[in-house]
């Protein structure tokens, strides 16, 4: 089956989409499908693979990329509306 998402590091709390996805679809990882997406999400963008509490660190490449500014559920699009970097 064609993969449609990539997990960059085992510790990551998000995965990256390899194509545009519609709400309700699951993205396909080598380990199987993700939780259904809760919104239309474009290629290159991130979705959560686990529950991320508001204020918790979001991890990609095995490293912190910022804090959740809202509660995030598996399958949620993670971007400017719910993730803020530590530098600005």
């Amino acid at each position: 089956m064609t993969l449609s998402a990539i997990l960059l590091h085992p510790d990551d709390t998000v995965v990256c989409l390899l194509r545009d996805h519609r709400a309700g679809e699951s993205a396909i990882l080598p380990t199987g499908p993700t939780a259904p997406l809760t919104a239309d999400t474009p290629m290159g963008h991130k979705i959560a693979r686990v529950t991320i509490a508001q204020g918790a660190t979001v991890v990609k490449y095995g490293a912190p990329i910022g804090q959740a500014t809202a509660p995030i559920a598996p399958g949620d699009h993670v971007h400017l509306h719910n993730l803020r970097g530590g530098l600005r």
Partner: protein
Amino acid sequence: MSEFKGFPRQTGRAGLRNHLLILSLCGLNAPGARRVAAALPGAVLVSSAHGRGHVGADKAFHTHMLRAFATHPNTGAVLVLAPDDGLCDGVAGHVAATGRAVEGFSLQGWGEDGTAMTAAAIETGRQLLAQVQGQRRADCPLSDIVIAAECGHSDASSGIVTNPLVGDLFDHHIARGGAGVFSETLEWLGCEPGLCARCASPAVSDRLRDLVTARHAIAAAAGHDLHIGNPGPQNHAGGITTLEEKSLGAISKGGTGPIIGALAEGAAITGPGLHLMDTPTLSPESISSMVAGGAQIVCFTTGHGNPYGSALAPTIKLTGNPETAARLPGQIDFDASPAFLGHRARADLLPDLLALFGRVCSGAATASERNDEGDEVISRLGPSV
């Protein structure tokens, strides 16, 4: 595979190429140097646009870079073109001490007759070219190779697929005793804690932080805050949310290993392992500085495409963007898009990349070599007087 077919040197690491380098030390020699290069197909031209009126660290850096190119592992022989005998003899002597053939021509020595000097340099260059082209490759250890990583005109595929793939190559090469270097200090912004945690010693970690602080200071002195507007709208549209994330995608091309050194721009990479180098963001400056540090080969990732390569170090151009790979087949050496399209796992591409890497080390031409897109440039560290 632990060996490649290269050119062992009397001093220093083995070469992947055996270039005749036409080295023009000063802007006064640049037009003549272009005529010499045009008459000697197969030779590599490195020409400084400056060379007079440098002061302080800028002067020392200019001299260092020219000498580093002249004694680079991939340089087999050198034709030095200089404005005066002093500069000419200084570089020629430095080259001769490494066992390389070298011939110098100075305008002073030729009574300021650039026409006659060019004609003579071409004649001598023909002999040097025949000499380097007659030398045969021999078995050399792959662990003798320093790989440089660069990214340019990046897109979503770069941070997700192509840079991590080059990182896989770095991890593989360094685990077998080789060396690697990546640069562009501004690409480390926001991931200093993670990078520092990977540093082999507190001294390296402190040095890394100092290098970032110094680049911040350069920007601040000109009224810029590097954190504002970074990442930009294009990054956001591509899915990058934070500066930490953008930087992590960029530095993933260096792999995951411990960081042995945090080097000044152009400084020699003296041992195995992973090194950082402080450089500006422009790819020509960044690549030339890593090449001057001793990198014999470059892996250059791109999203939308980018024809540029090093003149001295074969440059493998990689993209994960399927549209770019299809649009620029004559300019892309490695198509990583099957991993971006989800057809193959990234790990499955590494053997193919290692095979290409081995072929290029042993002499196979890269796209930028075939297309004559190579150059070397020397950063300016300050104004001239």
